[in-house]
């Protein structure tokens, strides 16, 4: 609806995330020649990869009108389960078990939010704490790396490259293509946007809104599972404390990418741009040797500004 209304104008505000990112990159590049070095550019891609996968899952939930605070705990759960399964049954089983664990958490969140109609903020706040507890129980609080470490092929997945690009970067790149097709080209995708935009209207036009909402949580959980497996490879171990506060970074990135917390609006690739903004800002501040206390102030200010920009845009 919104797209139709503004189609005849140059919709530059829709490109705000991209413009922000470009301006940020140009400014950083002007301040330090190191920014554009091939090493640093690869670093930025790798550093963004895991959060990009989480943010894509979060986009599903937010477009569907929901919210998911449990992704950080899910990342830890999936990483630890993947590690444990891998040590017993091999890499493939580990990866599958890790992603499945994420999907199960998503399914449970979906049930509670869509069927029991619990406010998503509270429901996922609960599962965030609960899942973290489960992680500590199954691991006994200790990192999962076995006697001789996780399989070396799996650890290589966390640092090796194919066609010059890290495996960790290929994952979000391929997922972005596939999930964008799902969300923009299929009837299912249209139902997600319709449900998030106006639940009543979607229901009246025959959409099974409960099922659609539940499905967005399953996507979010499964993608957090993928991220958990990637993180386990990166950290060469399943880490029960991993992923703390990732939910907040993911939500901030999705909002930076122009999604509306009211639902019905949001774009996968723009959420990824939102992740890039957060990572490039952190990277630039590190390269420029900015005090870590000030880094927190800067990141917080950017999040507030993004949310404010979201409100300004939606009133246009």
């Amino acid at each position: 609806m919104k797209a139709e209304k503004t189609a005849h104008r140059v919709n530059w505000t829709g490109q705000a995330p991209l413009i922000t990112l470009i301006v940020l990159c140009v400014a950083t590049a002007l301040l330090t020649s190191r920014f554009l070095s091939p090493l640093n550019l690869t670093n930025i891609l790798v550093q963004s990869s895991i959060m990009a996968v989480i943010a894509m899952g979060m986009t599903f939930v937010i477009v569907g009108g929901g919210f998911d605070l449990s992704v950080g705990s899910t990342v830890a759960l999936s990483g630890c389960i993947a590690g444990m399964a891998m040590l017993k049954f091999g890499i493939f089983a580990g990866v599958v078990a890790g992603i499945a664990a994420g999907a199960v958490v998503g399914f449970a969140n979906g049930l509670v939010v869509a069927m029991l109609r619990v406010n998503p903020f509270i429901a996922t706040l609960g599962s965030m704490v609960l899942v973290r507890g489960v992680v500590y129980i199954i691991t006994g609080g200790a990192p999962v790396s076995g006697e001789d470490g996780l399989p070396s092929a799996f650890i290589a997945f966390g640092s090796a490259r194919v066609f010059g690009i890290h495996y960790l970067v290929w994952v979000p790149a391929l997922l972005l293509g596939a999930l964008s097709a799902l969300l923009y080209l299929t009837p299912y995708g249209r139902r997600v946007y319709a449900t998030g935009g106006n639940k009543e209207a979607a229901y009246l036009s025959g959409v099974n809104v409960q099922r659609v909402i539940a499905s967005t949580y399953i996507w979010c959980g499964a993608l957090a599972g993928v991220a958990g497996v990637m993180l386990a490879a990166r950290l060469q171990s399943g880490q029960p404390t991993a992923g703390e506060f990732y939910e907040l970074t993911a939500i901030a990135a999705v909002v930076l990418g122009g999604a509306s917390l009211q639902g019905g609006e949001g774009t996968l690739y723009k959420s990824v741009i939102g992740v890039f903004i957060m990572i490039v800002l952190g990277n630039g501040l590190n390269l420029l040797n900015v005090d870590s206390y000030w880094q927190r102030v800067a990141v917080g200010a950017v999040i507030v500004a993004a949310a404010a920009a979201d409100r300004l845009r939606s009133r246009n």
Partner: protein
Amino acid sequence: MLKFRTLALVGAMLLPASLLLASAPVRAEDKITIGVSLPQDDNPFYIGMLKGIRARAGELGWDVATVSSNEDKLKQINGVQDLVAKGVKGILISPIDAVGVNAAYDAAAAAKIPIVSLARGSTSPNQTIHVAMDEVQVGRDIAEWTANKLGGKGKVAMLLGPSGAPTFRNLAQGYNEVMAKYPDIQIVFKSDGPLTRERGLKNTEDALVANPDLKAIYAANDDLALGAMQAVLAANRNGQTIVTGMNGVPPALRAVKEGNIAMTVELNPVLWGRLGVDVLATFLKGDKVEPRVFIKHVVIDSSNVEEVLAKMAPPKS
């Protein structure tokens, strides 16, 4: 109104970049810069360590670039990558986990930058040097002191550190080793988790409910000990249940002076930071350095706490 909105939007888009511009320091590029990555930037121990690093680096005419991680392993890896991209000459790191941040060591090694672990160590083959405390020995010293104080009998609770960190495993190993020699000392309570005052308080409350006749509490660091102390005071067990700490941070030293914490081990973080810089300097000069360098530790109790506090007082920077 539309104009205001447009302006505000443009402002929001420019904000990240302008924050960078505003914060960009002006400096000479020809100085040697070393990178520092510590697990926390709001913990007195690491604040002290960074102070020592900055002071010693300043004396050598070096610049220090820090990246923060706040106990997030991925963030520590990313920060070290940023330091490598920045072109630092050497890196001082206190790894959050012995395995979890090995990718940070790999990043430094790939760029042929020496990476020295301070305090906590890593299993990575790419760790250049580890400036460590003799953890097992510290654990033994604490246990020996406690056993003496208890006259060789009584119930003891142990508040351990995060289970992944080898430092705290080694401390506990030394402690248990000595306590095993005393048949009348029983370890009745054990818990692991984060090194916070809050946890020290809660766990001690629980331990005291379960064992009202608890004689001693081993706390893996001073923050835990300060929390344990609060619980002991609240239960009116002061003097009957002794608390031991580890690290020698100023609030714990004051508590030793007031008799609320029985003993702690001073691992002067400022000296640790200075030693780290010196070790790195020696290595960069091309001289041989052992892969493991030990820092001295001192047992502090009521007999010598005044001295230590007096020594700390003058150089207030």
